[in-house]
């Protein structure tokens, strides 16, 4: 028995050396196998190489702010529990189990006893308490600090029991308690919160996740290696995950084709379509993964006059009273714009099959998504009618509608560097000209563009949102947010506010869904945005990686389960 095993291992080694070719024998000479519960024997080892367009700024979940960084952090750190595909329920991670109290105001987590930080210290309830303290400290300025607003207290009962106390009952208590990974108190407890942003730790983090940081050469590559001390069932199959930073999109694509990188997230849509075709035809080994993403594009119509906007008067939400926009203050005009824009044509023309219809702000991936929402059809005739009814008629025959001596002519802004948005702008310009509206396009550099939105300095803007996992429209459409950063069209409707606030705390899911649909119907009627399209994500990954799942939760939801046949390994 033992002899045959040796022969098998030796054979596997020979096969690998024959295929691998090159100087990396050191890494993969000994092939280990693990037998899965279903009897499948999976070889352990192998490297995944991912291409990134930019480096991350820190690997501390409470300091960094990008999706890129939190993806990597999700491999180095553990959260209390992992969200499931339905985006409503959870699977155990650091917490083995949890339960709500009778009145749902306290939530108790029972932690695993076999989780260690990479320096050997045990992860305990104290770390959970500490992580919460960091998350809610304003001096740390964590970007999701508001998620913890309703949590009044987090206490460690003993080493493996933590109790979260809430000041109200609402549907997202579990999400708010588990958002934000657990960080080590014994390494960070002595650092002043205001100094956390520049701590050495952020460049050399000690975590407790399935992978640990091996090396980080700034602006070049980040290398993770499997954590040998990770608890048994959660251990990953791949030995290494390497992120290569390649700041140019074309170069990234070339590297994917030459095999220098194994995976590229968000392959440009045109190339993704090509990739799908080629993969089907067996011309490439890069397998396309397509799933509902987390972003959508829209046109925001400013309801106030940007030229006359004065941020120094009426600085409270209650007294907010600015000069209305001559065009878009009127909901009828905004509806006319939507009628005039052929969104289906835009999706077909620039989407390469990756753009999905969207009627209201709730994303198709979320439980509250309602397929039966009314659709404002493409109907230029209706658009013309609405414009004429509002008094905008072409009185001098120059092809542009006017009213009281003012032409219907405005500027639509968008940010540079996004080809899809540039193309959408051009299409919209053409569509609007057909109903007698003249639109000019202005491209602005990213930071400038968003700053102008922030200052309400735009008439119409083509922009996009990244969708959160919570259903909530407060920051984007509530009157309360009119002075904040994200309700930049200054949309206000008391009826919407009322329903939104009610829906937020409705515990009965069916009832809540009805309320959210009602709120969306108001938005659709008012059209503060013209919703253009929801985007699917398209990632490319070499086909030698098996058992890969990618969905709306992210690219790495089950990275621990990915594996490579031993004879197909490159590194």
């Amino acid at each position, binding site marked *: 028995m033992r002899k045959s095993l040796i022969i098998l291992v030796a054979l596997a080694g020979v096969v690998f050396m024959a295929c691998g070719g090159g*100087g*990396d024998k*050191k*890494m993969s000479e000994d092939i280990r196998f693990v037998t899965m519960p279903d009897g499948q024997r999976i070889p352990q080892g192998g*490297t995944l*190489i991912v291409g990134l367009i*930019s480096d991350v*700024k*820190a690997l501390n979940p409470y300091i960094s*702010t990008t999706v890129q960084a939190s993806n990597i952090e999700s491999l180095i750190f553990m959260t209390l529990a992992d969200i499931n595909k339905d985006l409503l329920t959870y699977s155990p991670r650091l917490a083995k189990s949890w339960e709500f109290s009778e009145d749902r105001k306290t939530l108790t987590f029972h932690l695993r006893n076999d989780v260690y930080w990479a320096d050997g210290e045990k992860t305990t309830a104290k770390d959970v308490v500490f992580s919460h303290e960091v998350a809610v400290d*304003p*001096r740390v*300025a*964590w*970007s*999701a*600090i*508001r*998620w913890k607003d309703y949590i009044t207290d987090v206490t460690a009962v003993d080493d493996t029991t933590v109790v979260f106390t809430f000041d109200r009952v609402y549907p997202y208590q579990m999400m708010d308690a588990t958002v934000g990974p657990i960080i080590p108190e014994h390494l960070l407890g002595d650092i002043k919160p*205001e100094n956390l*942003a*520049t701590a050495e730790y*952020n460049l050399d983090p000690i975590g407790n996740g399935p992978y640990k940081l091996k*090396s980080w*050469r*700034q*602006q*070049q*590559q980040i290398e993770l290696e499997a954590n040998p001390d990770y608890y048994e069932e959660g251990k990953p199959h791949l030995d290494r995950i*390497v992120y*290569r*930073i*390649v*700041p*140019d999109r*074309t*170069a990234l694509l*070339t*590297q994917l*084709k*030459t095999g*220098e990188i194994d995976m590229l997230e968000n392959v440009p849509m045109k190339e993704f379509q090509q990739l799908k075709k080629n993969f089907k035809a067996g011309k490439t080994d890069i397998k396309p993964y397509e799933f509902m993403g987390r972003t959508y594009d829209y046109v925001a119509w400013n309801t106030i006059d940007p030229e006359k906007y004065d941020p120094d008067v009426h600085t409270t939400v209650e007294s907010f009273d600015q000069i209305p926009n001559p065009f878009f203050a009127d909901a009828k005009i905004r509806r006319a714009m939507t009628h005039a824009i052929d969104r289906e044509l835009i999706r077909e023309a620039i989407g390469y099959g990756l753009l999905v219809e969207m009627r209201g702000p709730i994303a198709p991936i979320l439980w509250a998504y309602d397929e039966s929402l009314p659709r404002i059809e493409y109907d230029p005739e209706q658009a013309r009618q609405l414009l004429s009814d509002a008094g905008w008629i072409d009185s001098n025959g120059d092809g542009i509608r006017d009213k009281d001596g003012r032409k219907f002519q405005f500027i639509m802004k968008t940010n540079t560097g996004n080809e899809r948005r540039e193309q959408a702008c051009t299409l919209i310009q053409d569509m609007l000209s057909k109903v007698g509206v003249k639109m000019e396009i202005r491209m602005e*550099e*990213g*930071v*400038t563009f*968003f*700053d*102008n939105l*922030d200052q309400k300095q735009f008439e119409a803007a083509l*922009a996009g*949102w*990244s969708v*959160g996992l919570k259903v909530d429209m407060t*920051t*984007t459409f509530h009157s309360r947010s009119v002075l*904040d*950063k*994200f309700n930049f069209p200054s949309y206000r409707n008391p009826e919407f506010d009322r329903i939104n606030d009610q829906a937020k705390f409705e515990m009965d899911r069916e009832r809540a869904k009805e309320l959210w649909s009602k709120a969306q119907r108001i938005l659709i009627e008012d059209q503060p945005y013209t919703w253009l399209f929801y985007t699917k994500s398209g990632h490319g990954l070499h086909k030698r990686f098996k058992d890969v799942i990618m969905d709306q939760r992210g690219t790495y939801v089950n990275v621990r389960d990915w594996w490579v046949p031993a004879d197909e390994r490159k*590194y």
Partner: protein
Amino acid sequence: MLTYVIRRIGVAIPMIWLGLTLTFFIMRLAPGDPTTQYINPDFDPEVKELMLKKFGLDKPLHVQYWRWLTSFVQGDFGISFDRSRPVADVIEDAIYNTLILNGLALMVALLIGVVLGIFSAIKQYSKSDDVMTIVSLFFYSMPRFWLGLMLILIFSYVLGWLPTGGMTSINYEYMSAWGQFWDRVVHLILPVFVLGVASAASTMRYMRGSMLETIRQDFIRTARAKGLSERVVNFKHATRNAILPVVTLFGLSIPFIFSGSIITEIVFAWPGMGRVMLTAIFARDYPVAIAVVAIIYIMVTLGNLLADILYAAVDPRVRYGDGGGGE
């Protein structure tokens, strides 16, 4: 000579200060701030205020300026907003990488440019001169990003001989010393070529012109008349004189060795100063951006100075007086 250098530096310091002050205010007056990039509804507006406070950007502009200036003269460039670490660290890594790449490229450019320039001048109006003129014009006028992408396409994608970018391979840490050295060389070939060849083309045109001018001069004719061989005339007498203007060129290139070449660094994923500057500007990372600008200002000044000194060292006709004397 020493007085001259001191005098030049004395003039340079207020100039650098003026330039940096202007840069400081222009950058602050540009729309947006380091937090503007976090355009996501989950990002709380209050967090923005907190972050601005953390960066010290909530203070009036003149206070910020004074703070920046006082720490700057003490050699403290501050903390990068975007990378959460001292600016000096960010720049230290990048400057080393840029020095390797641009330094090599400059050497290649000078070497090829000077040799081909001389050759092209000696063989004026010959076929090889024509070919070299056309080829140099071709490389000179070609956009670098396009050349870079074409070379990647040919040598990496089609032929698979060279890596598409980066400084090292994935498994660099596991290589032998010789393997590591070779890995570095392989990664340098394309970017050095792209950077070097364009400057080589211009150096060559420069050298050719200078050489042509020199070989028509009297002393060359005299040398020929004395019966010296063509080789000695061309390479000893003419070249030494013709190379003078090119030396100036070298001095003027120094700032670029440090400041990097943005496009080439991005196409080849080379983590140098050009990339640092570009990302800093886009992220409104003021401390890094202004530190890079400062380095460029100082290098331009020093480069000019060096060019003048070199010129004096190689051209016997130029002498800088020590106070009393003329030039």
